[in-house]
């Protein structure tokens, strides 16, 4: 069977006063049916842009969009707005990065949570009951009573849980979650992750999970893609990525994870240098300026090296960089 989501050669640019900013370049990514795929990458590397491209919500200053986004056999690039809106309401649900902008400040959360069930033929009181049930799943205290409150009356983590509950209510085929656990304490985060996995098992949906929390990705995802400056630089199983990373960016990123450093540090490790300018994209390997491994060949664009079936890294040295 073909994968549920099949992205090939996707490029997206934004028009800016300085010229076109090439936010995504030649991105390929697949999400199988019932699969949970994680995306990790530097702040500003294009994760949210990738999501917005999938669901047709790119901003007004978007320039060219090239390539293919296949969803269950249907091409999403260039899909008319109405068809896209229908797909968003019925088959693809997104938990956005910023809960405050995703919730309507002037409507109670009860109103928002019943409205989102518009496809369901049920009475309002039945829909409210289901809303309460899902709020309880995400451990909202006093769920029934709080249905009549407005978003600003909830804490940051509560708002995030409301967004998660709303997304689960729609029972989508594809759930896209853009950093859904940033405002949750560690015990809640674990619960939400188990909830996502349960949902995936119960309704068989696929999940695209974006997070900076490496531990959360390792816990939840079967496959992981690493993005850097608008490109997917490595992908493989969670085991491949966390135990045998082959792209120098992935390796540096894992070294920076404070969760892996057991002794208290005065100065935390970082990756020196900064993201390249995406208006004037440099030639050759996109990570070259910051790469500790670079050599003469890196001035040429690296090939997609298959380390083992399903594990690819876009680096000239991918075969040599074995786990130490």
């Amino acid at each position: 069977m073909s994968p549920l989501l099949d992205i090939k050669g996707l490029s997206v640019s934004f028009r800016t006063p300085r010229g076109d900013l090439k936010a995504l370049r030649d991105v390929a990514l697949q999400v199988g049916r019932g699969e949970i795929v994680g995306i990790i990458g530097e702040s500003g590397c294009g994760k949210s842009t990738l999501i917005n491209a999938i669901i047709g919500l790119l901003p007004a200053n978007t320039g060219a969009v090239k390539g293919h986004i296949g969803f269950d056999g249907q091409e999403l690039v260039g899909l008319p707005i109405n068809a896209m809106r229908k797909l968003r309401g019925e088959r693809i649900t997104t938990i956005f990065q910023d809960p405050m902008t995703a919730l309507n400040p002037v409507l109670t959360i009860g109103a928002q949570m019943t409205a989102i069930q518009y496809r369901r033929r049920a009475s309002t009181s039945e829909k409210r009951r289901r809303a309460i049930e899902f709020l309880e799943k995400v451990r909202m205290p006093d769920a029934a009573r709080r249905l009549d409150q407005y978003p600003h009356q909830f804490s940051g983590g509560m708002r995030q849980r409301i967004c998660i509950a709303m997304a689960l209510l729609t029972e989508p085929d594809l759930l896209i979650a853009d950093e859904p656990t940033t405002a949750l304490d560690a015990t809640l985060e674990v619960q939400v992750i188990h909830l996502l996995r349960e949902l995936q098992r119960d309704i068989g949906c696929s999940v695209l999970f974006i997070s900076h929390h490496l531990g959360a990705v390792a816990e939840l995802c079967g496959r992981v893609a690493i993005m850097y400056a608008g490109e997917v630089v490595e992908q493989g199983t969670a085991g491949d990525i966390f135990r045998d990373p082959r792209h120098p960016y992935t390796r540096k990123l894992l070294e920076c994870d404070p969760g892996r450093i057991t002794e208290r540090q005065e100065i935390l490790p970082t990756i020196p240098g900064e993201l390249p300018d995406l208006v004037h994209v440099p030639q050759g390997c996109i990570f070259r300026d910051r790469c500790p491994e670079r050599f003469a060949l890196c001035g040429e664009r690296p090939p997609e090296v298959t380390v083992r079936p399903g594990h690819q890294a876009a680096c000239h040295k991918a075969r040599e960089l074995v786990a130490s």
Partner: protein
Amino acid sequence: MTPLLEVSDVVIRFPIHSRIAARLTGQPSSIEAVAGVSFTLEAGSTYALVGESGSGKTTLARAITGLVPIEGGQVDFAGRTISGLSEAALRGVRREIAMIFQDPIGSLSPRLSVRAILAEPFKVHGETADLDGKIARLLDDVGLSPHFAQRYPHQLSGGQARRVSIARALALRPKLVIADEPTAGLDVSIQGEMLNLMRDLQRKFGTTFLMITHNLNVVRHVADRMAVMYLGRIVEEGLTDDIFKAPRHRYTTALLSANLKAEPEAASYVIEAEGETPSLLNRPKGCEFHPRCLFKREVCRTAMPEEQMPSADHRFACHNPA
């Protein structure tokens, strides 16, 4: 060491029902989001507030800066009581206390460019000499190139917006920075850069940080002291090293063991509540953590535990500590 900030027995309530509705439903007319919290922040140190989502951390932070009124207790800053001050009297203090808000994009005005956002604090306090130079330096401090000045908030990624709000907070070199989840949404490398930047400021200018975060890995590396909150109260407080080495309160131990590691198939830990999730409206009797506690005894259901101090630097309230 001199304390820069002293929070004494602070209580903060939010109305939830009118009086009449409260009488009809038999519920209280307000919730106590912060129920008697005290702690002291030494000048030049970093203090972390951690705890359950909804336990009152943001509310407490907002109250310290005067954005939410407090109903009991008092807040002292640099030797002066600042709780209950009028807006005008607070103005001088505002320059010295900066806040980084939890919601990065939402806390930046959508109609202002990054340049205007960063210029604002300087303008408010009449420090407009070499404004462009100052803005360029701030951007550089948080690892953004100068051309970001022309962008608007919706043209930033989540992590870039977060960095702009950090830059804004640091603009006037405040004495105290209250940072609500300052590194949420940042990748681990940029997170490291931001934390190193804060430590740098601390070394150079003696800046004091009150950091609210769910990221325990961050707490362990940067905080000198920490407090753990549950349902509006501090349940454990002390030196970070001590608490990480030997947590005593059972909520603290649960929290620390739930910290996910970047190892596939590592076991994770969940604390479930028996019955309803404990809430501010229905505060459990006895130890308020008991409905979720795996180590409760009979006494935990009936009596609220007293605060114990195993050392001058460590306190917690638990009947059956680890």
